[in-house]
């Protein structure tokens, strides 16, 4: 005989309630075992704020970097100051490096959150919790691919680094906005609560019946097993971030170059004292670049399209520009270039004053960054050159012999080497 529906439903409800109570009990019991002072809301809040600032800085500079590499019609970096792109890139890369210990520390501090039961309370809470998936996964992804990019390690990626890094950054920023909204009140409360500050905790420990011994930082130790206190942990995290920056920043800050023992590039190391990422051999131009029949062909929207041999280019008025070359991998180097000012070159072929140009390389068109567009401001800037010499010598073939573009505030990948075509747009 079938049971009446109401009691069955009642039994089910009781079973569910019992299971829920049991789960809550287990969760509370596990959380109760987390006694380390490192898993505190205060520490989570402090690390969260620092991480928020670091990620924002990385996102803004990364956005500028991406737009500089893939310029839409409405954006280009101004041509001066000439170190603008270099500073932007340096801030992006080295803030990202310093963020590695911060992120791992934050994930460690908040892991007991996994024990929370019930995991979600309502729809909004579910959406907030769900946003942690892109926040955690995306943040780890950004730092991992960022480091891999610095080290030229692309084989494990399976995607184009720039676009994957760019869209994941947006994903993380969206999740970060959700997270900030959810935690803002908690952070405000925690940081405003005097009893949660390390000083207050020290005082509390000092006045307790069994004062604990002092720790290395001079504060009262709070961990009964003698582990790091929160101040010590913060110091360790900041120290680890500083150490990573110290052993790598010398690839762009010349006075610190001797310290850069964990960097893949070094200031002053490379052909003519300037590093290169792509050699002539890798680009497949070792023959075409030194071909006696080489010509630089000018075409497009100009009145006097023509072609130039290397000797023709050398015969034109030359100019010297001291411009840095900056790579998206984080290294940069000062260099002195000599060549034909692009502005006077464009006047020679009677190109319109406001015209942009496209330069194309001897590399195959199928290769990434084998061409680039120079906007009118950069094309007419007095420092922009069709460079023929570097640091007082004829361009090395790895630096783009016979002629390359060098312009202020452009990513290294857009300083096109082995130029064979200039097209006025």
């Amino acid at each position: 005989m079938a049971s009446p529906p109401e009691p069955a439903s009642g039994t089910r409800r009781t079973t569910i309630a019992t299971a829920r109570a049991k789960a809550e009990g287990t969760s509370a019991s596990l959380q109760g075992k987390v006694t380390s002072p490192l898993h505190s809301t205060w520490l989570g809040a402090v690390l969260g704020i620092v991480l928020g600032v670091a990620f924002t800085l990385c996102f803004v500079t990364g956005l500028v970097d991406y737009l500089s590499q893939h310029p839409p019609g409405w954006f280009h970096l101004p041509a001066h100051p000439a170190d603008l792109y270099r500073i932007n890139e340096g801030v992006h890369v080295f803030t990202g490096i310093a963020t590695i210990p911060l992120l791992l520390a934050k994930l460690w501090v908040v892991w007991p959150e996994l024990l929370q039961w019930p995991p979600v309370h309502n729809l909004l809470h579910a959406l907030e919790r769900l946003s942690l998936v892109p926040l955690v996964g995306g943040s780890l992804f950004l730092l991992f691919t960022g480091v891999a990019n610095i080290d030229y390690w692309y084989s494990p990626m399976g995607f184009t680094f720039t676009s994957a890094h760019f869209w994941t950054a947006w994903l993380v920023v969206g999740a970060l906005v959700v997270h900030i909204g959810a935690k803002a009140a908690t952070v405000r409360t925690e940081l405003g609560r005097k009893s949660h500050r390390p000083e207050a905790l020290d005082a509390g420990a000092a006045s307790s019946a069994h004062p604990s011994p002092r720790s290395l930082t001079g504060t009262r130790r709070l961990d009964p097993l003698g582990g790091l206190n929160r101040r010590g942990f913060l110091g360790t995290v900041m120290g680890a971030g500083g150490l990573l920056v110290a052993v790598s920043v010398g690839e762009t800050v010349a006075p610190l170059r001797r310290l850069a023992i964990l960097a893949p590039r070094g200031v002053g190391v490379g052909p003519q004292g300037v590093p290169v990422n792509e050699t002539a051999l890798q680009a497949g131009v070792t023959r075409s670049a030194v071909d006696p029949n080489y010509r630089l062909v000018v075409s497009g929207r100009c009145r006097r399209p023509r072609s130039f041999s290397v000797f023709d280019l050398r015969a034109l008025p030359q100019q010297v520009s001291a411009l840095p070359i900056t790579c998206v991998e984080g290294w940069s180097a000062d260099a002195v270039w000599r060549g034909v000012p692009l502005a006077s070159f464009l006047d020679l072929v009677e190109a319109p004053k406001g015209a942009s140009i496209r330069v194309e390389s001897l590399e195959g068109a199928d290769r990434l960054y084998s061409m680039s567009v120079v906007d009118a401001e950069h094309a007419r800037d007095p420092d922009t050159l069709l460079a023929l010499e570097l640091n007082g010598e004829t361009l090395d073939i790895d630096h783009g012999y016979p002629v390359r573009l060098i312009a202020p505030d452009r990513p290294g990948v857009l300083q096109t080497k082995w130029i064979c075509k200039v097209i006025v747009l």
Partner: protein
Amino acid sequence: MSTDERSSPPDAGPVSTARVRPFQLISLIVGWAIIVFALHGMVRNRSSNPPHLLRLLISLNVVNDALVIPVVLGVSLLVRRLLPSWAVVAAQVGLFTSAIVVLYAYPLLGDWGRTARAGFSRLPYDYAHNVWWVLGAIWLVCGVLAVWQWRRRSAGY
């Protein structure tokens, strides 16, 4: 253990129990709009290999929660239980910083970027050697910290 030491679980409480604030609601809407925009951008941009990328993003969560956290938890418990109390802080500092350095230097140690680093720009470094130097410096500092801790403990601080 004093009451102040007993830390509340991180980030628990107000999120779930307090009423929803306007700022939280606005952040939720704006944040999810950006997430949807990002997912759309990923899917539209084939070069980002969306299926692979999304799998990777989820896998990194799993690796963190199911692998890294338990391993760190285990090591942390071992350090706290096995070492004398004066050595625990130094060991924690040393292990954390060393792990970060090794993780950061991992691609260099494996020399996986070698093909792209061909040519005269390649630094003449033995990165394994350099990592050992950095680790040596870290543990030297940690050793000094441990000795200092031991002396303070012996002096009755």
